[in-house]
């Protein structure tokens, strides 16, 4: 009888992941066994404490020293960038969950036909889908694993673990049910399609390198000469799958629809957490696995970055819906971040670019959660007021809220004294150092175009007359209020005094990705 | 010269039997002989099986059963088969012709294929060639059987769909849902066997049941039983239940519930050869699941205890007899069940499969796996674990018992209250009933522990 040596798992290094997944599973048990009236009361501390605990463990790991070897038999790479990304995602997830925690974002009975008597009845009875907490935890677990994956197989699994709960959560908005269901359907179909591309690419790269390990693919680049067909096709297909997840053009089509239809807290989670996770994974694949191949892929990445920035910025101008506008702005920001991805070079250059991207991701994520939190507070009779015309004159009716929103928009635009300025500055600076000057010029022009529509919203809010039957601004719950407060504070502090976080990002990026 | 003889190919009386390495060396003609034998065995088996079933069930119901055609009615099935062959083959006008024709074939062929991995005996000498009494074996032989079962379901579902008749399609869907559900529980009941045998090959599973080994409890060596039916009795019991469900036999013969569905998925198949194929497949499937039960749980072709004391019991051609005897006994069990039990309702069937068998099975596998892992480590934890399991099981049992008791009492109180109320006003709510305190109603309240089940 042959025996198998038990695998070595570094539990402490993986502890943040395990805590989040474990809490998700506990949440499912709560769903199964706890009485209905207790569930929410049990989910909230479970979810928030697990995220806080995971964050604490990330800090412990950082203090104890960054591991230099992949963990879990080489499946997960807990390195400097991963720890920074984990920390970022956990903070973003924590504040998104405070937002998600608010009542009445989610449908009372998802299986009921929209607008049916059954739905009405569930609403009156006060049913809630408390399943959203474990689902969100699973999604966050996937987000943590995705950028930390050290081989393509686990990256694929992580991609699915991250996406599947999000597909579900998108379809659970309480209001505008059909739009929400449509968004879930679109996200699911397109997501499955992109996963197929990812898997196809993985298979081809496996055929090329004989392994799915990122490091082994990298070493195969110099060893296996003359099999470029498999390599290029595989890398291209893999790239399609990853670029879809960050919403880069020409794979951006899902983003506005999904961001619009999903419940706004879920949109906030996607706009921040998913983007960070997907960028981490993209960087790992393109810098670790096929980093030696940058001569071949960087022209394409140039094209994609330019297209993404231009499409995002220009199409955002034509939007009349605040959530769609924010979605296009997210596309544009993905483009700005891609500028940093192209700025690959020697180790020092890589560290600079990586640090810039990490910083940008963190500040953009926080600001976008803040912006979406404000969107949840501006309500009409039928739910959130999405149409831009409804926002006219908001600054005259509730100047504080409009002021905060304007501030987040300015951060998106990258105006000095906001965190967005330093993010953009760092990325563009790294790109210039990496020799991508033309790209930076396009980026600056796109930023200017983007600034136009941000400013247009500000003008609309402050210099137009309010409509007589305009939307009401609800009194925020403590959760929403603290989300907005935290996001605003972070945006200001990082806009005035960004050095600590920049330093942190630089020290995290200094060790680069482990191989 | 001794080194020319491989130790496996020439088993002594104590050898546990062939292993995977013994397969794949047969000359073609031996394989053909085995395949033809299997086919003939199954065909004759079906003929005799139908007769046995009818005879046996008749005796159980105090009647004679078929006794006209041939001695003891032995030729009855042959006559029925001939009749089916000679009848006009009706093809209803609206059916989907291709699938209507293919469905009986799809259901019958996998049933035969599954039998190819059932071991009939050890290595014997067949016309001078040493070969195991088994058509073939694979490292995943048991999975092959499951795979064949899952292909067979297509026959059922397609027969229902191709018939273009509501009864048939409902019967087909019901039946395939049932088979697919019970297949999961069936597959799970194999897991414990795999864990203990450490292999998925049928011949090796039989070999592992040659000797149960012993369990060292301190200085005491307790010999363990060798049959997995004893060692893993929960798995075996669950398997027996799923085997009834998997083959659509009473009490799970919903697909053919004549009272509800006319004839189930084969309603539109008139009693022609196509119908005969369904019959054939049903009986062959019964043989397959019986063969699997024999192989996985009842020691396969190995002789049962008193006979196994004889040295020659497990060599040569004798084991075929033991295998056959076990197969026949299992078949008789099917008939016995059919004669004794009524058909369950569909929702009860699904409830039983999904909410009872599968969770039970999972819990049992978890226990077996932890037991197995700890025993490998030779840890004293085994005793602790067993104690915990026993205490836990007792705790769960008493908990359920008290809950059920409380529920029963509550219901009895409620009914008594209703009776009181109705006694005051005999026509309450328009019930056209006589007064409820008539003399012959006395004691009616004692029968209140009937279980009230929601209707489907």
């Amino acid at each position, binding site marked *: 009888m042959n025996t198998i040596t038990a695998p070595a798992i570094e539990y402490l290094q993986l502890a943040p992941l395990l805590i989040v997944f474990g809490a998700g599973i506990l949440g499912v048990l709560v769903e199964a066994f706890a009485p209905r009236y207790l569930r929410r009361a049990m989910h909230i501390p479970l979810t928030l404490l697990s995220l806080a605990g995971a964050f604490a463990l990330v800090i412990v790991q950082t203090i104890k020293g960054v591991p230099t070897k992949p963990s879990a*038999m080489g499946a997960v790479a807990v390195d400097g960038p991963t720890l920074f990304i984990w920390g970022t995602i956990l903070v973003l997830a924590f504040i998104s969950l405070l937002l998600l925690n608010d009542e009445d974002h989610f449908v009372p009975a998802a299986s009921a036909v929209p607008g049916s008597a059954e739905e009405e009845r569930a609403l009156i009875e006060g049913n809630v889908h408390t399943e959203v907490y474990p689902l969100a935890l*699973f999604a966050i677990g996937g987000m943590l694993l995705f950028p930390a994956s050290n081989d393509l197989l686990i990256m694929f699994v992580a991609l699915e673990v991250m996406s599947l709960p999000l597909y579900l959560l998108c379809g659970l908005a309480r209001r505008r049910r059909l739009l929400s269901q449509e968004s879930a359907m679109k996200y699911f179909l397109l997501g499955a399609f992109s996963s197929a591309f990812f898997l196809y690419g993985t298979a081809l790269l496996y055929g090329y390198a004989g392994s799915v390990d990122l490091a082994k693919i990298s070493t195969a680049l110099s060893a296996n000469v003359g099999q470029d067909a498999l390599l290029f096709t595989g890398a291209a297909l893999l790239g399609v799958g990853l670029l879809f997840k960050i919403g880069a053009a020409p794979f951006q089509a899902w983003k506005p629809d999904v961001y619009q239809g999903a419940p706004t807290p879920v949109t906030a989670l996607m706009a921040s957490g998913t983007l960070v996770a997907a960028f981490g994974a993209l960087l790992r694949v393109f810098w670790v696995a096929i980093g030696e191949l940058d001569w071949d892929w960087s022209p394409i990445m140039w094209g994609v970055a330019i297209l993404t920035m231009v499409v995002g910025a220009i199409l955002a101008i034509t939007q009349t819906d605040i959530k769609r506008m924010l979605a296009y702005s997210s596309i544009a920001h993905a483009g700005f971040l891609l500028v940093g991805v192209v700025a690959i070079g020697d180790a020092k250059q890589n560290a600079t670019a990586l640090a810039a991207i990490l910083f940008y991701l963190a500040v953009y994520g926080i600001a976008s959660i803040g912006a979406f939190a404000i969107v949840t507070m501006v309500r009409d009779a039928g739910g959130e007021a999405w149409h831009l015309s409804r926002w006219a004159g908001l600054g005259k009716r509730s100047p504080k809220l409009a002021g905060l929103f304007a501030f987040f928009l300015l951060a998106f635009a990258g105006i000095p004294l906001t965190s967005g300025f330093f993010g953009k500055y760092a990325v563009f600076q790294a790109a210039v150092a990496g020799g991508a000057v033309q790209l930076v010029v396009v980026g600056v022009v796109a930023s200017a175009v983007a600034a136009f529509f941000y400013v247009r919203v500000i003008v609309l809010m402050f210099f137009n007359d309010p409509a007589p039957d305009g939307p009401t601004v609800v009194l925020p719950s403590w959760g929403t209020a603290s989300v907005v407060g935290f996001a605003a504070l972070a945006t200001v502090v990082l806009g005035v005094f960004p050095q600590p976080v920049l330093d942190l990002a630089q020290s995290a990026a200094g060790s680069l990705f482990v191989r | 010269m001794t080194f020319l003889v491989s130790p496996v190919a020439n088993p002594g009386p104590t050898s546990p039997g062939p292993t995977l390495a013994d397969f794949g060396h047969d000359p073609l003609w031996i394989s053909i002989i085995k395949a033809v034998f299997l086919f003939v065995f199954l065909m004759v088996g079906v003929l005799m099986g139908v007769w046995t079933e009818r005879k046996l069930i008749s005796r159980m119901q105090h009647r004679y059963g078929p006794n006209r055609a041939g001695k003891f009615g032995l030729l009855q099935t042959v006559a029925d088969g001939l009749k089916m062959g000679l009848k006009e083959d009706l093809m209803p006008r609206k059916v989907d012709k291709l699938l209507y024709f293919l469905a009986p074939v799809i259901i019958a062929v996998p049933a035969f294929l599954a039998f190819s991995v059932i071991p009939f005996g050890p290595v014997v000498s067949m016309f001078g060639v040493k070969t195991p009494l088994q058509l073939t074996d694979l490292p995943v032989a048991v999975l092959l059987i499951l795979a064949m079962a*899952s292909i067979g379901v297509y026959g059922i579902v397609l027969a229902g769909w191709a018939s273009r008749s509501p009864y048939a399609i409902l019967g087909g869907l019901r039946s395939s849902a049932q088979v697919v559900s019970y297949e999961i529980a069936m597959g799970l009941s194999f897991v414990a066997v795999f864990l203990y045998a450490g292999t998925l090959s049928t011949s090796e599973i039989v070999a592992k049941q040659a000797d149960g080994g012993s369990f060292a409890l301190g200085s005491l060596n307790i010999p363990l039983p060798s049959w997995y039916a004893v060692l893993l009795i929960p798995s075996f019991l669950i398997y027996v239940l799923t085997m009834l469900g998997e083959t659509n036999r009473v009490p799970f013969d919903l697909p053919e519930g004549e009272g509800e569905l006319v004839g189930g998925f084969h309603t539109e198949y008139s009693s022609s050869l196509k119908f005969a194929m369904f019959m054939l497949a049903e009986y062959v499937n019964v043989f397959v699941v019986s063969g699997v039960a024999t192989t996985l749980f009842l020691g396969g072709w190995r002789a049962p205890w008193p006979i196994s004391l004889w040295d020659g019991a497990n060599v040569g051609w004798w084991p075929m007899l033991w295998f056959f005897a076990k197969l026949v006994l299992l078949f008789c069990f099917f008939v016995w069940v059919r004669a004794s039990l009524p058909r369950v309702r569909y929702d009860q069937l699904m409830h039983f499969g999904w909410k009872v068998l599968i969770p039970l099975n999972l819990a049992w596998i978890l226990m077996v796996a932890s037991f197995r892992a700890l025993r490998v480590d030779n840890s004293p934890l085994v005793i602790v674990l067993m104690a915990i399991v026993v205490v836990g099981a007792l705790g769960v049992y008493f908990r359920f018992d008290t809950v059920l008791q409380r529920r029963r009492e509550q219901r009895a109180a409620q009914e008594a209250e209703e009776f009181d109320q109705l006694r005051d006003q005999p026509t309450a709510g328009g019930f056209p009933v006589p007064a409820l305190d008539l003399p012959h109603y006395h004691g009616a309240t004692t029968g209140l522990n009937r279980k009230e089940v929601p209707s489907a």
Partner: protein
Amino acid sequence: MGETVTFWVLAVASVAAALGLVFSRKAVYSALMLGVVMLSLAVLYAVQDAPFLAAVQIIVYTGAVMMLFLFVLMLVGVDSSDSLVETLRGQRFWAFLAGLGFAVLLALGFGNVVFAAPTGLAAVNQAGNVPSLAEAIFTRYVFAFEVTSALLITAALGAMVLAHRERAEAKATQKDLSRARFVAFGETGANPASLPGPGTYARHNAIDMPALLPDGSISQLSVNRHLARHTEELLEERSGELDASETPVAEITEGENSK
């Protein structure tokens, strides 16, 4: 040799089935074609010394996944042709063009592929196919294997969220139903029992032959009304050619009353 022959046979079969999947007009046929493709793949795996994968492919894909497909198709009845209105004009043309371009690109790419020397199945399967697979799953890929459980839990939870309907009140038991029937009987006089079967006390027990009540009159309830209409037509048609043994129902009643 054997492997090559199997490959070419299965290659033709599976490509033909895949084309059939796309072009067949009936959804059930498409699903079956997919089943054929999966089976061919399973056989190919088996031929390439991966028996475990082959068995699992059949059990999981052909046995479970395809069966669910078939269930949905048969229950929902997707045979009706879908609406083929294009919301985006000309998208099918462009989609076809893009798909074709992609296929050509892949074909050109793979046409020139050179593979590195494979490790070889013998080396990989040294400890046996199943144990080798187990070793790969439980050592190197154990984390991916475990994380997959999160995926499965999510899927189960999602199915519950999207499809499970909580029952607002307890389901009526047979007793409740019977009680309700009698209450209705007390209030409106609605028949609480099951309907009389056709043919009771009549001369035939055909499904369109109404039952006779104890007083000899026919019971309208005993025949489905669609069939009953049919019966009347039939009776009218045949009234001319009836002989004494096939007296219509109405006449029987009259005759017996007159006695």
